[in-house]
C-alpha cells in the first residue's frame, strides 16, 4: 500500500510542476502542452537503447561453453555405465 502511495505522490508532484510551468509562461505554451508526451517518448527510447546496449555487451564465455559440453559428455558416459537411460536430445 505504501508503495502505491509513493508512486501516486510522485505523479501528483510531476503534474503540479507541469501545471505550474503552464501558469508561468517562461516557455511558449505549445511546448508545455507537448512536454509530457515528449518525456514519455524519450523514456521509451531510453529503454530500447538500454536493451540494445545490453544485447551488444552480453558476454558469451566460449571457454565455459566448451567445459560445459565436456562435463555433459562425462556425465552421460558415467550414467550410461551405471545403467540409467540418458537418451540423446
Amino acid at each position: 500500500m505504501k508503495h502505491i502511495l509513493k508512486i501516486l505522490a510522485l505523479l501528483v508532484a510531476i503534474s503540479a510542476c507541469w501545471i505550474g510551468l503552464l501558469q508561468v509562461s517562461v516557455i511558449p505554451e505549445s511546448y508545455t502542452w507537448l512536454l509530457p508526451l515528449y518525456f514519455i517518448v524519450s523514456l521509451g527510447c531510453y529503454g530500447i537503447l538500454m536493451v540494445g546496449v545490453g544485447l551488444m555487451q552480453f558476454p558469451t564465455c566460449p571457454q565455459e561453453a566448451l567445459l560445459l559440453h565436456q562435463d555433459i559428455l562425462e556425465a552421460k558416459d558415467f550414467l550410461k555405465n551405471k545403467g540409467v537411460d540418458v537418451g540423446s536430445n
Partner: protein
Amino acid sequence: MDLADKAVGLLLSGISLSVFTYYTFWVIILPFVDTDHFVHKYFLPQEYAILIPVFALVALLCFLCMFVGYVMLKSKKKKA
C-alpha cells in the same frame, strides 16, 4: 550466435537513437524555423507528432489488455 545478438542490439540502439533525434527535432527545433525553410519537407505536419505516439501508446495498452484477458481465459478453461 553472439554475432546475431550484436547485430540485433546494434539495430535496436540505432532505431532508438534515430527515433529520439527525429522526435526531438520535430517537437523542439522545428517550431523555431521559418515556414519556408527547406527542412520542413522532411518532417510530417506537426499534428502527427502528437497523433503517432498517442496512437502507439493506445495500441500498446489495448494489446496488453487483450493479452492479459487471453491468458486469464486460457487458465480458467484449463482449470474447468
